[in-house]
């Protein structure tokens, strides 16, 4: 079953139960490798991610800086797919597995301005 379907089902189950629930990721942490950072950059731009993650994720704004993040890929994937109430919208309905991997690859590729 694709991750997004699992996510949607579990999110719906969590909402039905009236509780917050994160996606229990069925993939191992290294399963998020293989994304295309260039495509991820386009997805990042086209979905308005820079509204909060300023300077294409290089610095904190409304949301945290993403460059040199210490977060695990599982954390990044969960946050991207489920969002965080009051801070970040859920993109689970917008991105498929490959696009999610692309965005994570882009996050890991962010370098200081002028060095990319």
């Amino acid at each position, binding site marked *: 079953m694709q991750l997004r379907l699992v996510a949607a089902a579990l999110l719906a189950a969590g*909402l039905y139960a009236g509780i917050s629930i994160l996606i229990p990721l069925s993939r191992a942490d290294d399963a998020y490798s293989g994304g295309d950072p260039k495509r991820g950059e386009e997805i990042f*731009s086209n979905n308005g991610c*820079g509204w*909060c993650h300023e*300077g294409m994720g290089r610095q904190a*704004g409304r949301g945290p800086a993403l460059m040199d993040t210490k977060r695990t890929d599982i954390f990044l994937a969960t946050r991207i797919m*489920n969002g965080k*109430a009051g801070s970040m919208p859920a993109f*689970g309905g917008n991105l498929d597995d490959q696009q999610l991997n692309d965005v994570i690859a882009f996050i890991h590729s962010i370098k200081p301005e002028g060095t990319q």
Partner: protein
Amino acid sequence: MRLSRMTLLATASLVIIAMVAVATSSRADDVSFDKILHAEKNPGDWLTYHGGFNGWHHSQLDQINTKNVGQLKVAWIHQPGRTTRGVQSMPLAVDGVLYYSGSYSKVYALDGATGEVKWAYTPELDEDLVARQTHSPYNRGMAVGGGNLYVGTVDGRLIALDMKTGTPAWDTKLIDSQKLTVGFTGAPLFVKDKVIIGSQGGEWPGRGPIFGVDAKTGKKVWEFLTVAGDDESMKTWGNESWRTGGGGGWMPGTYDAETDTVWWGTANPAPLYDWGGADWKTKGARPGDNLYTSSVIALNPDTGKLKFFHQELPHDAWDFDSAVGEFVAIDQGGKKYYVHPNKGGFAFVYDRADAKVENVYKLADNINFVQDIKPNGELVGRRDMAEGPAKGLCPAINGGVSWNSGTYDPATGLYYKIGNEWCMDLTVQKTTPVTEPQAQLNIAAQFKIVDPPGGKAHGHLDARDPITGKIAWTVDFPEPPLASLLSTAGGLVFVPDARGWLHAYDDKDGKELWKANDGNQHNGGIISYAVGEKQYVAVVTGGPSLVGEGYAALFGGPYKTMEKNTGSLVVYTLPQ
């Protein structure tokens, strides 16, 4: 206890209310349209988002005044529970009952003297949709009239609640929010027999509708599209760019009874920013003026037909929209004006007869997205950016003013308004046209907020002549306060700031007379009302707002650790 002007006004009001009640055969607490129309005759109430159709955010109550404001104490507090993004609404007060809305469009009716809950209402929302929305789930207020309260929801509904019981009278789905992504966050406006409400829009692929709904039945009567809703406006969106949409009118406007006209401000076109540069009329994401975005529109309240308009920023390339709902009615020198702030940091002064621009002045110092705007409204020296980096655009996307309202005091003749000083570096990017459902923010740029040239980002409270903009006095703030202001006949201007302080200033000279901390940031409304012979000041707290959530990164300090997603209603009064 001496009530002076308040007592006299209250006595006069009782007589008038009785006359209206007889004339309309309605219950006194139904809040007839006549009562709203003459809100100034009921100084103990606060009947519309803007405190009355004059848009003054001013209370005629003077029991709390410059001499005794130092004694002001908390009377009671209401805690609304689940408060994602804080309480951002403007309370209402009717006959000693205080009503306010919180996140997720929860509604409370409270005893105005004690805070005791009379009833509460929590709508069942599409939580899956809410989780996918960016500008959600805050609610910025309600309308009252005809025995009901009216509140919009982020999943596209307008709900009427019996103001005595909180029981839904009707619940109308106006927007397919699953398709348009957005819904309603702003307060409605009750006009005659209709409830008027504008949708979110701006960064999403919709046509930014504003609705007129029958107040008794909930049936939609009309819908005005702020994006290409008629043949003329369709021509201003080259290459069918109207499909990427934007617009909307997410803050309540006002009603001019003399001309029977609803005035409303509209939001920006999508995408934010545009790579058309100087060739924006023929190239870029959305070639043309993009009517009726970033405009002030005048509608027939019965039909929703456009009577006249003024587009403050043709082809808004900066997200400096006109959705600020503030229309301050000023009668001066035999002329009748509305003063309307634009997010770009300019105030437009309109002739109320036809929206002819009579003057334009700056509310912020750091503005360079245009060199200037002439007194007739003409933009001079536009800074239209092509694809690529652009440094030091001022003001920042947060605006030279934010969406909350200033206040006008008829006693001083001064208009009190917050101005914001900040800029940003950005890189304009070509993006793929976004026309599909459930889209996220459509922004053709990446950016970062920076300090203005030669100084730190900050805000200021200015007391001005509302027509000329001439400043009488100024108070600086280390960070722009983001909440609405309140002036009172007690000679006071109340300013809720971003650090949680509620300040009271002398309205004549800006001298601070009192302050107290509400324990959280302020991002919403403030009103004054009376129960019996006692005056109260009610302010909402909490956040973050969409602008305020950037304060940790920009200003640091307390914003790094200040609690988020909480809030309350705090009510002050004088000791017994």
